[in-house]
């Protein structure tokens, strides 16, 4: 099957391309951007006039909730919601029940994802058994089952020796460790960023130092172990510099920030709004701006959705008793475009950070339109205005602060491996 995606604004940061062009695809692979290869005739044409054609987005940490928490979300529904939001690949986090610390759970998730017909689902394995931070997970077995990386998520590993061994063993298994850095002792009682807001609301705080200390600790151990380390969902300005310096020394380290941390600060919590209860916590305006700047300069590689759908009850309690996380797929594109419109970074950087860079972090092909690349793409209307309502949300998670907010920019179609996994009804 040959496709001509005709007349769209093709943005391909890897190849420095941003302009109206045709995109030619054949059998799930990119053939060319621009003029058709000699003699090629498309079987089908997609008219992308006035639309943007970009490599599909990747979420490095999606909480798909299945098995174990199907009352919050299911793999199939979230994979379809992701596709409708322009994601071609999402990485399922290992905080399921049972935890993804053995091949059986990996297979279970991949089976559900395969029949969903949505975004491609990749699986992150647990770094330690039960995410308990004590016993190493069977990393080779997980790798054989198909995991693309290992993470202990926000369950900080207390014992530094366990962390050291986990990094070294992951290096032997040639698996990237995806870390959400937080010092256990400084973070364990906290629920919001420590500062004027935690003081005003009387909520126990998590100092920025909790993250910065963990970044230093993990960089030091990963360098010694030769482990490939990725920091996910950074929240503090001071985390950036040690990462940049380590990279300059030649260390294999990358980082992402969640889109929510580029948009909001601790002040948005207002009077206990549980939609802004996140882990790591939203921090100060200075942190938000420094993180956006780090994306603009490339110091932070990627922007993640950090999608965490919840059931209604998980957020229907006093702030400290609610579960952290935000449902983010549905609003990812317009919110990312709003960051671009606000001058945080340019559109090519945004798309690179949402697609090319996470592909590279995962060691996966894709995120660009070079000949031979997989046909993973999203097509969106950058000017289409819409309002977030119960009807427009495709994720099960209603835990979004954007209810009834007007958005600009909407996904029109998404293709994974040459198949349309989403096409908006016109």
């Amino acid at each position, binding site marked *: 099957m040959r496709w001509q995606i005709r007349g769209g604004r093709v943005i391909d940061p890897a190849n420095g391309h941003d302009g109206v062009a045709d995109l030619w695809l054949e059998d799930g692979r990119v053939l060319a951007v621009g003029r058709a290869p000699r003699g090629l005739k498309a079987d089908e044409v997609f008219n992308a006039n006035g639309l943007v054609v970009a490599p599909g987005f990747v979420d490095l940490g999606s909480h798909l909730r299945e098995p174990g928490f199907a009352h919050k979300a299911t793999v199939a529904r979230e994979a379809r919601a992701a596709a409708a939001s322009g994601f071609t690949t999402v990485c399922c986090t290992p905080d399921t029940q049972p935890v993804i610390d053995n091949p059986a759970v990996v297979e279970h998730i991949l089976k559900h994802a395969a029949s969903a017909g949505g975004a491609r689902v990749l699986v992150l394995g647990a770094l330690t058994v039960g995410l308990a931070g004590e016993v190493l997970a069977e990393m080779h077995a997980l790798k054989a089952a198909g995991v693309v990386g290992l993470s202990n998520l926000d369950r900080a590993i207390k014992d530094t020796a366990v962390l050291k061994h986990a990094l070294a063993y992951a290096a032997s298994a040639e698996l990237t460790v995806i870390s959400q850095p937080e010092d256990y002792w400084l973070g364990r009682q906290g629920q919001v960023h*420590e*500062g*004027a807001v*935690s*003081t*005003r*609301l*009387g*909520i*126990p*705080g998590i100092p920025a130092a909790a993250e910065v200390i963990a970044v230093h600790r993990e960089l030091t151990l990963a360098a010694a172990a030769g482990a490939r380390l990725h920091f996910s969902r950074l929240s503090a300005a001071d985390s950036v510099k040690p990462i940049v310096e380590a990279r300059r020394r030649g260390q294999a380290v990358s980082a992402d920030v969640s889109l929510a941390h580029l948009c909001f600060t601790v002040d948005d919590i*207002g*009077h*206990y709004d549980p939609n802004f209860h996140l882990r790591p916590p939203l921090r100060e305006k200075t942190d938000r701006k420094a993180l956006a700047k780090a994306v603009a300069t490339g110091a932070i590689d990627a922007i993640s959705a950090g999608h965490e759908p919840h059931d209604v*009850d998980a957020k*229907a*309690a*006093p*702030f*400290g*008793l609610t579960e952290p996380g935000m449902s983010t797929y549905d609003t990812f594109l317009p919110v990312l475009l709003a960051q671009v419109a606000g001058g945080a970074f340019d559109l090519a950087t945004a798309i690179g950070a949402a697609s090319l860079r996470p592909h590279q972090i995962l060691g996966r092909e894709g995120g660009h339109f070079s000949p031979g690349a997989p046909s993973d793409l999203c097509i969106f209307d950058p000017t289409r205005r819409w309002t977030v309502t119960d009807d427009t949300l495709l994720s099960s998670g209603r835990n979004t602060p954007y209810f009834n907010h007007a958005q600009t920019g909407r996904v029109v179609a998404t293709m994974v491996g040459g198949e349309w996994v989403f096409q908006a009804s016109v």
Partner: protein
Amino acid sequence: MSAADIQLDAQGRLRHFIAIEGLPRALLTQILDNAERFAPVGDRAVKKVPLLRGRTVANLFFEPSTRTRTTFDLAAKRLSADVLNLNIEASSTKKGESLADTLRNLEAMQCDMFVVRHQVSGAAHFIAQQVAPHISVINGGDGRHEHPTQGMLDAFTIRRHKQDFTRLSIAIVGDVAHSRVARSNIQALKTLGVPDLRVVGPKTLIPPQIEAQGVQVFDDLDEGIRDCDVVITLRLQQERMQSALLPSANEYFREYGLTAERLRLAKPDAIVMHPGPINRGVEIDSAVADGVQSVILQQVTYGIAVRMAVMAMILGNQALAGAA
């Protein structure tokens, strides 16, 4: 939504009493003035006024309390309301019932007002958002956040002794970090115009960026209470030693305990306050707690009048709104 938004009705009258933060000065003054009117009720032989006859007030205590619950109980009864005391800590939540479900059940009992104490900050705010429109909520203390009736009864006590807030130097001494009383005191006293408000304690017990609330921070007690008109001492919980915030109660008393000798650094007519229950020999010496400058027991008495004032204002507003 700001705290003030949820607390006030369209006419700016009190609908819930969740936090002092955000409330206008005129409203705080009105609470104090109304409390003055209710204060004599307690001195009468028949300690009752018929204002809230037929109304039902439920005391929902998710955390143990003696003094606060008793004074809310008395306040409601002196207003002739029916009172339901529920020690929820020991019942529903242990059976796994969610807070929202507990509230729905209590609503079904046709109460007019919930007085809520909860160990989690923001609980009263959450409950006020959840309840049916005819139910009002008074915060009896939520986590480390606020204890607004305590804040108002402290302001009432200070006004009785010192009249004009705008000339006062007031020091709040001790575990400010974990204290909802301190937060309500700071909000009330700043709003009422106290120009010199200080918090005094070791850095481990002073929350970060508290200066943003308009207070000066001292880690030396002598400097902190020097020339003050009012010294408010806070209770020190035993847990503070276990979490390595302090070495020992003894050292705390040596550095921050209010003794007669130290109190001489404050103004000669300074008053000493404490939200209770007091730890003698930890945050305050017995000679001071029982001394002539102590108004600690008056605080308890005034607490009833202040709580009557708040309940009457809220349910009175509601009655007016219902009639209209």
